[in-house]
């Protein structure tokens, strides 16, 4: 018993040169990855193999070759047992409009094997946890996209799984809804203790939510490392200032001043999640505690108004971009990997990794 617990503690999902070939396309190509408990982001463009991987992990589609296990259970043999302790939230709409959220989630709880009374009790709890209150008795046809996404999440959580697979949970949400959903996903792990595998084609939003990010492209593993690896070494300070009559372009004046003070400054450009208005934001590399004082003094000397000054980690996408620029065709995937996941890319220093990185950028832009 203690043995299995140990195994499960180390990995929730493990794949070993997992391949899936269809007559015309190869959806997964010798993918080997270990995913530890926590929130893991699975990033890839449309058609990168994310959905195929999820299908295989749920034991619904046999792999062409290789092996995969979820929660220590083999996907080829124990599909039913896996699906009992795994939750799945599909990307597409899946809610019948003429039943209420409560009825629907109760039914889904029973479909997961919960006895009727437990199904009702867990439904009430889960809907409350995802933030659905009085409206849960109304037919779901009248729900907003945000509410529908919450119901979809609730039906994936209602049977108290040990792992949930969330397929593009932020699709179609406005920025506020997106933030709420990401916060909720974070809580699924921190408060509920359920491991999460969340797919997205946006790197930026996973950065805030995930402990670990796995990037796949064309069915191949591109990179697997902890989010802190992506962002840690590059803490920076975002500074936004007003313009004054003395300095009609306050941002530029500040930049010059900071350059003179010996700090590395660059304009923020567009945020990785497409956040607008970044032209007036400067990113200052934090060299130490003194950096903050220098920035403050520089602004005060110029007499500019400080709109904001916030600590910001570099976006994952930026790391990708700089990788592209700095190390052309180099074997990028050998980043130190906290979880010890093997880098199952096609081969060392292959040209594929460079082109794949180009795709990484495209993924972000998508």
């Amino acid at each position: 018993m203690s043995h299995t617990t140990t195994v499960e503690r180390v990995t929730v999902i493990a794949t070993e040169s997992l391949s899936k070939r269809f007559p015309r396309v190869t959806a997964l190509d010798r993918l080997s990855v270990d995913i530890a408990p926590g929130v893991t982001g699975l990033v890839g463009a449309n058609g990168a193999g994310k959905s195929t991987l999820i299908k295989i992990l749920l034991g619904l589609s046999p792999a062409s070759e290789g092996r995969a296990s979820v929660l220590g259970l083999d996907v080829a043999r124990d599909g039913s047992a896996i699906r009992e302790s795994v939750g799945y939230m599909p990307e597409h709409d899946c809610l019948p409009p003429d039943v209420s959220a409560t009825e629907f989630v109760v039914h889904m709880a029973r479909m997961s094997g919960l006895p009727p009374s437990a199904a009702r009790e867990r439904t009430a709890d889960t809907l409350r946890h995802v933030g659905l209150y009085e409206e849960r008795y109304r037919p779901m046809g009248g729900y907003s996209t945000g509410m529908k996404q919450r119901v979809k999440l609730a039906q994936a959580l209602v049977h108290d799984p040990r792992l949930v697979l969330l397929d593009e949970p932020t699709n179609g949400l406005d920025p506020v809804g997106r933030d709420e959903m990401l916060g909720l996903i974070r809580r699924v792990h921190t408060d509920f203790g359920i491991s999460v595998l969340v797919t997205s084609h946006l790197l930026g939003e996973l950065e805030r939510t995930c402990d670990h990010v796995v990037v796949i492209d064309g069915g191949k593993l591109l990179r697997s490392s902890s989010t802190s690896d992506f962002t840690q070494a590059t803490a920076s300070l975002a500074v936004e200032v007003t313009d004054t009559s003395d300095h009609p372009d306050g941002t530029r004046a500040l930049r010059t001043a900071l350059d003179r003070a010996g700090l590395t400054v660059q304009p923020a450009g567009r945020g990785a999640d497409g956040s607008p208005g970044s032209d007036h934001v400067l990113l200052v590399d934090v060299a130490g505690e003194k950096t903050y004082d220098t920035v403050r003094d520089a602004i005060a000397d110029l007499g500019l108004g400080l709109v904001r000054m916030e600590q910001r980690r570099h976006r994952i996408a930026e790391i990708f971009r700089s990788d592209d620029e700095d190390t052309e065709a180099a074997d990028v995937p050998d980043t130190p990997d906290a979880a010890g996941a093997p880098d199952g890319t096609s081969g060392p220093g292959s040209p594929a990794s460079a082109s794949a990185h180009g795709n990484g950028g495209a993924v972000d832009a998508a």
Partner: protein
Amino acid sequence: MPPETVTKQRADVIHNIGYRHYEGPRLGRAYARRSLFSQSLRGAYGLGRSAKSKVAPMLLFAVMCLPAAIIVAVAIATAADELPVKYTRYAIMLQAVIGLYTASQAPQAVSRDLRFKTVPLYFSRPIETMDYVVAKFAAMASALFILTGAPLLILYVGALLAKLDFADQTKGFGQGLVSVALLSLLFAGISLVVAALTPRRGFGVAAVIALLTISYGAVSVVQAIAWDQGNTDSVSWIGLFSPITIIDGVQTAFLGATSSFPGGVGPGTGTGLLYVLVLLGLIAGSYGLLMRRYRKVGL
């Protein structure tokens, strides 16, 4: 128990905001299949659905039972020595009602899940394709059996109240039940296959009605022509080409029914066996086609 755990649990209770894990039983595949069955069966009568969706099935159920009640009332009032309608004949007489019910509820059972893409949610749970198909098939057949069996029960109870011969009535009732059970399986299978082809409920309804009425209409016309030309042999052969005439043939050959074919020339035992084979083949074939259909739907 380590003390921290206890404190944590207590804190959960006080604030009542914490997440509670589920430690209870998980009843697995068979239970999930039963749950899907009962949900679908209830749904076939609009239970657990909106008030509007209860109207059609309940109305048809009433229409189905009303003639039986009238027949029974007449039989009791006139102190008849037998029921004016045989148990096996009742479903054939009211086949239009059964057809309407089938057409309205079969798409409800399967098209909705396809249209609103709920199917992947089912298959992400412990059940397998087979469980889904079996549950839906059984639910639809049971719903039809309730629809066709209830009036027979009314007839039987009425016959006993009218003090008709117990042995005769029980035998007739039993034969009637077997016949409507076969009819339920056949209609459920065919209608589900048709309905599962389209996510559009309207198309499903139209297709099932068309299939049932056109096949019956065509078979009746051709049978009438054959009868007219004195070709009595072919009358019973032609009956193999529509669902309701297959049931008619089977019950005429084996369940003591009087055929509603022209001239009452139902199949004999030899042709009757063929009828049974076709009937069972159609039921099994429907099941096979549904399995194939849902293997593809998946996620």
